């Protein structure tokens, strides 16, 4: 009897406790998605409520952005291309840097580990606006970065005002120019030559900014994973005569695969959403080379008053990002990293122990480790 009362109270409490969350998330996260989809299929012009003042016009907005030749398609292609280079620049760099920092900070013999961890993580704590403001100062034409570069006798570019693409510079070395063989064809309104432009110098600053602010967070993820790598495994590898590089690449790295995958996917999801920095750095300037889909959607809606197109771009961006998220979910769920990781570790330890026995019987295992008795 007492149990029944408790059970009934439980159900009521359960609904009541989750009600605020359900309401707020439902209204302000789920509803917007549906409203946006509706507006993207309509011709709403920005006055009054979209539900009353707009007519459905089918896929015209999506066509304008994806298939019809014109400025909208070209802008969308430019935004996708820019964001693609941003992703290709940021994700590998931030992953490699975070991993490198984590490995270095994790070393047993290191003193001052706390200081280093703090130093590398601190940029992640500050707001994107503050950091971008500081970077605009550092990378000004006659700013700090160009000052440091000038010590090496090189004239730094006018970072934020330089729209020339890195890819174009490389292509130029091979004699492929704007009017060359790649000038025709292409997709989304850009020629193949345009697609191969690489990130512009200004975009490179944003890439550096992203790596600066996010490598600390991912370093912590890697640190946690490294600390889970059993001490035994590293010992076994060391006894076997493996130097630090060998240990890292053949033993540690495979065990870090799940975390590596998480970091890569989080990086992918994050880089496709870049907005704040683009807004502050000039909204696509110079020459639309820092334009990204997120900012393009904002610009189309709030500046060109083309809400249908803006929401269509938002929804396309949503699809891109959700695809990556789903891939991450699927791969991680199947892998069941925890259990299979431990299995692999056990097998590795057994193998190394066997090797160690064999080595002891014939050979000097210590010399490979730099140890002198």
């Amino acid at each position, binding site marked *: 009897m007492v149990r029944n009362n408790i059970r009934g109270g439980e159900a009521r409490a359960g609904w009541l406790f989750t009600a605020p969350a359900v309401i707020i998330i439902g209204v302000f996260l789920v509803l917007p998605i549906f409203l946006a989809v509706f507006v993207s299929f309509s011709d709403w012009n920005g*006055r009054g409520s979209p539900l009353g003042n707009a007519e459905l016009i089918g896929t015209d907005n999506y066509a304008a952005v994806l298939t019809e030749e*014109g400025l909208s398609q070209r802008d969308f292609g430019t935004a996708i291309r820019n964001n693609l280079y941003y992703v290709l620049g940021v994700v590998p760099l931030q992953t490699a840097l975070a991993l490198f920092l984590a490995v270095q900070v994790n070393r047993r013999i290191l003193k001052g580990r706390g200081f280093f961890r703090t130093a590398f993580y601190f940029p992640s704590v500050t707001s994107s606006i503050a950091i971008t403001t500081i970077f605009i100062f550092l990378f000004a034409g006659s700013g700090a970065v160009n000052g440091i570069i000038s010590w090496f006798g090189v004239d730094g570019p006018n970072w934020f005002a330089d729209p020339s693409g890195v890819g174009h510079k490389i292509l130029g070395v091979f004699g492929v120019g704007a009017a060359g063989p790649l000038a025709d064809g292409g997709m989304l309104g850009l020629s193949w030559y345009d697609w191969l432009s690489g990130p512009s110098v200004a975009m490179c600053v944003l890439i550096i900014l992203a790596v600066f602010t996010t490598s600390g967070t991912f370093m912590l993820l890697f640190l946690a994973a490294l600390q889970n790598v059993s001490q035994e495994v590293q010992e076994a590898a060391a006894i076997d005569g493996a130097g630090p590089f060998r240990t890292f690449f053949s033993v540690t790295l495979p065990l870090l695969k799940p975390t590596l995958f998480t970091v890569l996917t989080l990086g992918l999801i994050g880089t496709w959403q870049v907005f704040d920095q683009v807004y502050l750095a000039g909204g696509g300037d110079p020459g639309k080379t820092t334009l990204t889909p997120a900012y393009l959607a904002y610009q189309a809606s*709030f500046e060109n008053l083309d809400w249908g197109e803006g929401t269509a771009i938002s929804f396309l961006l949503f699809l891109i990002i959700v695809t990556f998220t789903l891939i991450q979910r699927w791969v991680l769920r199947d892998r069941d990293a925890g259990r299979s990781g431990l299995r692999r570790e056990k097998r590795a330890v057994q193998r190394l122990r066997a090797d160690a026995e064999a080595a002891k019987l014939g050979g000097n295992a210590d010399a490979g480790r730099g140890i002198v008795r």
Partner: protein
Amino acid sequence: MRRKMLSVAALAGGAALVLAGCSGGGGGDSTETLTVLIGTSGDAETAAVTAAADAWSAESGVDVEVKVAANLTEELATGFAGDDPPDLFYMSWDQFQTYAGNGYLESYGDDLPNAGDFYPTFRDEYTFDGEFVCAPKDFSTLGLIINTDMWAEAGLTDADIPTDWESLTAAATALTTPEHVGLSFGQEYARIGVFMAQAGGSIVDGDEIVADSPENLEGLEYVKSLYDAGVLRFPAEIDAGWGGEALGAGKAAMVIEGPWIKGIEGDFPDTNYASYELPAGPGGPATFSFTNCWGIPEGSPTAEDTVSLVEFLTSDDQQVEFANAYGVLPSSEAAAQTYADSNAAIAGFVAGADYAVTPVAFDGAAAVTSEFNARLADFATADFASILADFQAQLEAAYADAQ
């Protein structure tokens, strides 16, 4: 236990209601206050507009609040989308067609008693679908502004003031030193376009787009020649935000700007400058005129009072006061003449009004223009022929859409 839950819920609900009640701006005041949103060129302009609004308030008894926008385009868009636009606002020439075309603006021009005072060109510019929509509040033309100290240093005299492209090149070359560049202006259609016009080119001819023409190409090539010779640098390349800053900070000896250049006196009081007409090109003299109008939202409940405010603000006396305060030229012919007569410094700008053209501005042209500006960004390697071809195609598409 249940009491606690209820009280918590009540507290949360109450807090939500209170917060919902605290609206940040323009809620529903019982006494009417007109909100005026402006984009300012500096403290002088803000002060002048506020003073004028207060003067009208005293006369009419209606309160006016002048707000300065950090980003006028954005704030107007969100204002309209939030169904809470300001009662009166600056409507810029490049956005006018978009706003009018989307039905955002109240057509009050024909109701103004002083509608006949404005320059006919500006009245036409702000006519949409046969209706005179909004009153032009001022106009500006582009002129050549020269740093007189640097001019004297280079040993140049009045005879060397550029009147055509050759003399412009010569002057810019003489004025280029390792410390400052001879000429600078914005890397955009709104500046480079004057050279296209001076070469005899235009963008719209009646109902046809004629952007892709040899004259326009000639204008672009001339600018390129200045750039290649190293006597022209764009503001971003010399660490300046715009031409006026380049002039004031001493980074450029000549700039192409409008009468709003007066605004740099606050930040750069030591820079001495003089303004002249732009040099003529092979196709004759040409410059751009920019105007803004006073926009009233369509269906605004305060329209009657606001129109009366506009009438006050566009009266000849008030326009001359604005002109004296922050340098824009009055949009009514009589006022402009009064101002020009008393003010030799801006004679160059006013003279330009005779042959000024308005930059292209139909609904959708703004996006095409910013694409044009984007293509010009990589100036050293820009392919002008293909840029003009694309400009033509995109303008044609936008024009077709706008009909």
